[in-house]
């Protein structure tokens, strides 16, 4: 029982990550109809916003300490961050400690801008081109973005810890009457789950309850008619692209304490996020979220030792197996619309 509860927690957490990534992808892929292979790269750029802020906060002045030696035997150069000098030792240290959550503030404008430039500069010209061309151009773009990040940050994963206040884990088991230490879950993952829930809700509310969202939804359903009504749908689609990029970026920022970012992380998520979106059904935002959570939970269950003992390696293929089963039983995924990306 405790193992199952634990894996449900894991699944929800994994699922919230999948759902968040898939949400941004659905906005672009499922609705604008652009196969965006650079979506993983957007996630990665978001993660590197956190790294960048961490670097900025750690910009240091150098003092030479003669009492210590560096690896070549020269006097050690001691680095002290400027923020500590400016804002005092304690507040400076707190700023550095909180760099990941603070990076959200940095990531939103950066990602909106990246999304805007991408759409205006490149994607716009590919709405009417075949999917094959979209794949090639966005894949090329993803590689280029990846290489640029690699040039500046190297290929090694970079540690971006969560604020000290969130280290350690919360003991759920005690709440539910289990022994201590049976069901524990890290605070940061709980934060991530809550954060995802808020973002997902916000995106839905935006599309559901604002006029802007209504027009966009109409545009997704029938772009031509909306255009004929004299609405500049292109402009709104650009905004949607920016929004999708921002969602992907924020997902990336918050994920960095869980997964140390490296330049390659976008590609690692790319395939998975496409599977999540398609299983959810093309053109459906709730479908993407649902499928994210479903796949996350099933994957967690498949990782249980009892199940692995029965079916070795099941945890490695479960996502794909489920995808096959769902697509065979439900022709358009969980909640897909008819005719979207079916030819």
């Amino acid at each position, binding site marked *: 029982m*405790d*193992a199952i509860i*634990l*894996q449900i*927690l*894991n*699944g929800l*957490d*994994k699922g919230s*990550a999948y759902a968040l990534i898939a949400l941004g992808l659905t906005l672009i892929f499922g609705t604008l109809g652009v196969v965006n292979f650079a979506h993983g790269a957007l996630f990665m750029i978001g993660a590197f916003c956190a790294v960048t802020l961490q670097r900025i906060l750690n910009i240091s002045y150098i003092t030479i300490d003669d009492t*210590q030696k*560096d*690896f*070549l035997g020269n006097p*050690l150069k001691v680095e002290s961050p400027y923020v500590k000098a400016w804002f005092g030792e304690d507040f400076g240290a707190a700023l550095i400690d909180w760099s990941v959550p603070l990076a959200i503030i940095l990531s939103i404008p950066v990602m909106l801008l990246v999304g805007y430039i991408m759409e205006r500069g490149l994607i716009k010209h590919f709405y009417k081109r075949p999917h094959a061309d979209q794949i090639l151009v966005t894949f090329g773009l993803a590689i280029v973005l990846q290489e640029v990040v*690699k040039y500046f940050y*190297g*290929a*090694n*994963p*970079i*540690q971006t*810890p*969560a604020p000290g206040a969130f*280290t*350690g*884990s919360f003991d759920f088991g005690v709440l539910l009457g289990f022994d201590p*230490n*049976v*069901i*524990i*879950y*890290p605070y*940061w*993952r709980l934060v991530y789950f809550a954060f995802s829930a808020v973002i997902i809700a916000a995106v839905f509310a935006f599309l559901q309850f604002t006029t802007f969202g209504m027009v966009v939804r109409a545009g997704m359903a029938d772009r031509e008619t909306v255009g004929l009504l004299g609405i500049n749908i292109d402009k709104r689609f650009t905004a949607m692209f920016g929004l999708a990029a921002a969602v992907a970026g924020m997902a990336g920022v918050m994920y960095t*304490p*869980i*997964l*140390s970012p*490296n330049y*390659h*992380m976008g590609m*690692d998520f790319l395939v998975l996020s496409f599977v999540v979106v398609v299983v959810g059904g093309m053109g459906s935002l709730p479908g993407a979220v649902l499928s994210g959570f479903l796949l996350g939970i099933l*994957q*967690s269950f498949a*990782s*249980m*030792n009892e199940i*692995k003992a029965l079916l*070795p*390696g099941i*945890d*490695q293929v479960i996502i794909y197996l489920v995808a096959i089963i769902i697509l065979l039983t439900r022709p358009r995924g969980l909640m897909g619309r008819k005719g979207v990306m079916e030819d």
Partner: protein
Amino acid sequence: MSNSNFTRRGVIKTGAVAGAGLALPTIFTASSAAAFTNEPTGGSVKIGFNVPQTGPYSEEGLDELRAQELAVAHLNGEGDGGMMNTFSSKALQGNGILGKKVEFVTGDTQTKSDVARASAQSMIQKDGVIMINGGSSSGVAVAVQGLCQEAGVIFMAGLTHSNDTTGKDRKANGFRHFFNAYMSGAALAPVLKNAYGADRRAYHLTADYTWGWTQQESIQASTEAMGWSTVKDVRTPVGAGDFSSYIAPVLNSGADVLVLNHYGADMVNSLTQAIQFGLRDKQVNGKNFEIVVPLYSELMAAGAGSNIEGVYGSMNWNWQLQDAGTQAFVKSFGEKYGRPPSNAAHTCYVQTLLYADAVTRANSFNPCAVAEALEGFEFDGMGNGSTLYRAEDHQCFKDVLVMKGKENPTNQYDTLEIVETTPVAQVTYEANHPMFGGDEASLGTCNAG
């Protein structure tokens, strides 16, 4: 097509027929059938450095590349000579190898067996290299070693830690300076016993491929030999990213030590997440819960940052060693690149020097002569103390370092500290040890092409 021995470039004279057919003015065919693959004929000799330059291990590959370039400079008499000054064999003169200037070509393995072989093939077929060095994964090492055996060139493995490389997959043309999983286990076990006691229950998370399996097997055997028990061995997918589903059940399993048989980004992530779960702050069976990472590297330590504090692991070599060889190497590497070398870099540097030295002592580039010179070769002054290249399996035997993540690092390179230098006798095993292919494993015969 009369010669049955034309398995490489630079062999056969078909000039007459082809030339007549093409009616080209001048035709020079290869002067004579070479004695072995890519026999160097001019004033220079080419060696190939095949390392990952793209993908997750590219940072490590680039560090290997730096060290290899440094080795070439030293061989050619440039720079301060580095370890050539401390090397116990004095055959190398700083005038290249056998008076031939050393040139090198580089390739990208992408840490994929297929690609690494293609890259090695191009070095052999196109560039005419006489030796291939480097690499950052056991799968790649075994694959390229097999290729070099077939093609008739020497392979000096870079970072490869699986028992198989000089175990069941050992080859006459392949040599490994790096230590292996068995040695990690043998070196770590006594230290772990001292630190954590003889009555511990270990839970293994193991990367689900051959290297992970051999390491898990080795660590389990050596820790069980000193009294630990093994609660469970869970295989995790490579590149899983999120290991939470595997870490979550650990605390409730009755285990009080978690062994992470992961490498690279997997290790960084699994360790970071295990720390995030607060495992090291917990008490199980009345003891502090501990984590062990059997194979460390500097880059992984840098990636995991403060999470490795107090975590034990092992290494082939570390720049903080105080012997003359290490100091000479760190000085010359540090002055050129502004950073201390990694242990992968060290291995690649040493392998290049060892190869050059063997050629010089054998007075021949013939891979079989070189292999003979390396087999049973004992040397010192290369940073690991007295070292033996064992003839039976082409594995180097030397001291192994047990490391611990440093509690209060003073700078970005100061991430690990040396806990103990395990003497070579303690990590030595029989060449026909069951973990190394048993009696069936054989080097085969040397192939000169």
